[in-house]
């Protein structure tokens, strides 16, 4: 019931934030209407960071406590993080073409490290399919999730460490579109979409975590069943049928 309320709140927030970004906020003086994409692009990127951060932390907790709930949380973070990273890349491409003149440029450190982040976590999800043993799978995934998380700060600071097409931080930098002196309406549009995306993320995390717990319980149950079957003599199995 609580998850349903969260889902409704997320839906209303995302629709409202989209109306603000598409209709209420005026076009940017330099970038025109293309700048409106920034609201969903930044929101998606923020939620992707959050997801992979959860995956890394939950992986660490799994290695420490061996509690299946942490593996379920790590899986939820990775799957949802992959979805939002893909959204952030798509939004960036749609924003990049009218502003930069190209959809993509491999020489840009932010773009390339973000693509790497996507590949790393797709690999994480594929790795989980390699074994049927839930414990072994969770341990391998936790290690990969932790190693892949090294790319998160690299993605974030890539615009500071190296030069490329991508602009530096959107908020806080004095020469950017959004800075403390920017019109409040731009700041509100970005903050409202980021909050709305965060609500949607929270709802999806709750649902995906619940699904991962069910999958884990089912697998464990099936595994125990196979062990019991292997230990039960053939005659006893015949009787059981």
């Amino acid at each position: 019931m609580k998850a349903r309320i969260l889902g409704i709140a997320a839906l209303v927030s995302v629709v409202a934030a989209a109306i603000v970004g598409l209709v209420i906020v005026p076009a940017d003086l330099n970038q025109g209407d293309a700048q409106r994409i920034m609201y969903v692009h930044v929101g998606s990127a923020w939620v992707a960071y959050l997801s992979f951060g959860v995956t890394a932390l939950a992986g660490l907790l799994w290695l420490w406590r061996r509690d299946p709930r942490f593996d379920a949380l790590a899986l939820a973070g990775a799957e949802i993080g992959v979805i939002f990273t893909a959204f952030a890349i798509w939004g960036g491409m749609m924003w990049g073409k009218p502003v930069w003149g190209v959809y993509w440029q491999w020489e840009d450190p932010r773009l390339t490290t973000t693509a790497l982040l996507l590949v790393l976590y797709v690999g994480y999800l594929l790795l989980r399919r390699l074994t049927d043993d839930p414990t072994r799978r969770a341990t391998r995934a936790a290690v990969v999730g932790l190693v892949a998380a090294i790319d998160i700060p690299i993605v974030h600071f890539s615009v500071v460490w190296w030069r490329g097409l991508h602009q530096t931080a959107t908020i806080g930098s004095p020469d950017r579109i959004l800075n403390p002196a920017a019109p409040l309406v731009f700041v509100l549009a970005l903050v409202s979409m980021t909050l709305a995306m965060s609500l949607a993320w929270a709802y999806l995390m709750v649902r995906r975590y619940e699904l991962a717990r069910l999958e884990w319980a089912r697998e464990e149950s099936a595994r125990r069943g196979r062990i019991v079957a292997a230990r039960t003599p053939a005659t006893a199995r015949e009787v059981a049928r």
Partner: protein
Amino acid sequence: MSDWPFVVAGYGVILGGLALYAALLQRRLAAARRSGPDESSPLEDE
């Protein structure tokens, strides 16, 4: 050329994708709840 096709494509894919993923997740969850943990382990309780 107008930037609106890019804006519509950006918002459409992201928000549409979000809705599609939420719907698919709901479906997967409903299927997992229906099947339950004991379906594939008939010998567990014996």
